[in-house]
């Protein structure tokens, strides 16, 4: 069951869930990219910058759908 979308409040300041999902999505994509570089798996990719962008979007959607609820 996917979580119910809700804002995040820090000290009375409300932030949209997509922002948080996006932030974690970017971090996850960067970590994945570093690991792919570390183990030289990125050499099999045709154009890593586009792959990086795609990973950010995929991670944002996944985190937003299944973890945060964006």
């Amino acid at each position, binding site marked *: 069951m996917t979580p119910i979308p809700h804002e995040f409040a820090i000290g009375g300041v409300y932030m949209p869930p997509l922002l948080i999902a996006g932030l974690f999505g970017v971090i996850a994509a960067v970590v994945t990219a*570093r690991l792919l570089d570390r183990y030289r798996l*990125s050499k099999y990719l045709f154009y890593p910058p586009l792959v990086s962008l795609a990973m950010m979007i995929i991670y944002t959607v996944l985190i937003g759908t299944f973890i945060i609820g964006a």
Partner: protein
Amino acid sequence: MLSRKTKEALKTALAMTIAYGIALSMDWDKPYWAGFAVAFVSLSTIGQSMNKATLRMVGTLVAIVVAFTLIALFAQERWLFMLFLMLWLGICTYMMGGAQHQYFWNVGAFVCVIICMDAGPNSANAFEIATLRAQETGLGILVYSLVAIFLWPSSGGADFNAAAVKLAATQHQLLGAYRGLLSNKGDSAQAQELGSSAAQAKALFDQLLAAASTDDYEVWELRRQWRHYQHLAANLAETLERWREGFAEVQSLDLPHLLSNQENYTAELDARLEQVDRMLANQAPARQPAIIELAFDRAAVASLSHFNKAALAVSRDRLQQLEVLTGALFDCVSDIKGFGRETTPVVKLSPAVNRFVPDPERITSVVRLTATMWLAWLALIYIDALPGGAGFVSMACPLGMALATTPQLSVSRLFVPATFSVLVAGLAYIFVMPELSSFWGLGFLIFTLTFAICYLFAAPQQGLGRAFGLAMFVSIASISNEQSYNFLTVANTALMLPLMFLLLAITAHIPFSPRPESTFLRLLGRFFKSSEYLVSTMRWDPSSKPSRLERWRNLFHSHEVSTLPRKLQAWAPLIGNSAPLGTSLQQVQVVVSSLQTLTYRMQALVESRNNPQAGFLVQQLLEDIRAWRLGVEASFQKLSADPTTAEHEVFRTRLDEITRHLEARTQEVLDKAADGQLSDQDAENFYCLLGAYRGVSDALVDYAGNADVIDWPRWREERFA
């Protein structure tokens, strides 16, 4: 006693506070623009600050004129408006990549964008915004100038004189080191280190000359002589390097026997530079330059092989150039320091090339910035409630220009300074400023924060942190007489920055990948392509004059060959320090160094080709020289297609074969020559040419040997930047 760092931080903080105080008391809108002016013109000496302030002010005025022109012409045509604004930004970005007045072009661009964006839908605003910008900039500059002049003034004169002494001393030491290397007694590692020190000393001297001319009257009075000295020092550095490049070919010869007074000759050059050191230290010279000729033993030289004669001719030519330069340096410094001038021949300096030669790197930066600004503009139009609004486009310009003209700087390096500065500025804005009720409190806050930022980020390499810290504080605080506090101001700025970085990260890949190794390979390919073209133009046909297009292409490719090694050097540390590439910094620097050697050899070849040659030699050896030229051209062609396919053994074998053949043919032709058919000058010109051809081939073989050790396939693997 306060340190220099503390004094400079105090001056900036005081100027910032006073500028804000005056702007607020005069009820001027946007006093933070005066704060920006103070933040960005404050440098370590009055001269540097005044120069930068002048460039900022003139840049602002020019930007205002351009902005008014665009708004007047295209007030209702937003696409045409942006097109012509982009044209102006492109011109400014291109010019910013040049050697002079970079900051003028930088300011001319982003101030124009600020006025255009802040004018908004009402073009009548434009005049008020422009006037305000000029007022506030002028105020900031005036306040900082007065504070810098009256409070602990630091003139650049002393630093400049010290830089001149250091430059002369390192060049003198370099000559001594090269003399040692030539006689096989020197240490090449020490010589290389001295070479780097000399290059750094020259860069510092160049930087300080402009500032010292502004704030030191004695330097200003003699500014033409100092520029002449600067030019001579640059020529000396280049000639010393070109002399050293030829050592490999002459070290095996019995030089003391061949050039009988070489030791005395180089001792005379050394003595002249020693006197230059003395004069720069304000001591009268102990002796004047002696007129000396470099003698050679004809009989001994005649017994050498033709290639050895060629190498000797090239080395002798370099020594003679050094003699002329050291004499000119002595005269110049003697004139500057007032120790009287001796009547020595005036060195005719080669005229500066004023013709326009497009620089591909600068064009790339224009394309990159244009892409950035267009994307920012489209985001402003099509994304509703874009954080920052028009400020997003305004901020994209200076950041985009900085990154476009410094492609080695990665966007990720901006994250930490930006985050830290937004955090500090945000905390001050939310928690401290609402508690302040008068200018005393506000002034104390401005003073304290500015001092802290300038003190903590005082080192030149921390300039990015300093600039971000001051800029974020000034823009987030948004101090004005009608002060309001809204968390959205901080939130919008905090959100705008990640979007800005995302935009810059995307456009960093336009038009080429920003990966250091991809850039290095691309530049390498261009270097060999230009070398191939230059060699192809050396067909021997004195009757045919090159067309204008051919002359221009020649100029372009010569410019490429002479500037690309320096550009490659800028990328070397990023490759050498990158573990995934499996290449050390030293390996990359050796490759770059061999390319620089190839550049010098190519330049020597072009110069030698311009000397007149004896008709009968041309006739007899034309086919052989042509075969050699075609061989070198084919090698360059292969390398331009793929710079990583340098085959050291193949090049070496081919060169040895050609050398043997040409040696035999030259002997054959000269044996047939009648007595007196070949004059001394003809012989010298011929041997210089032969030496230059051999030099290019040797440098190519040397490059191939150095390139062999690099793991090129790994450089070509795709990876995330």
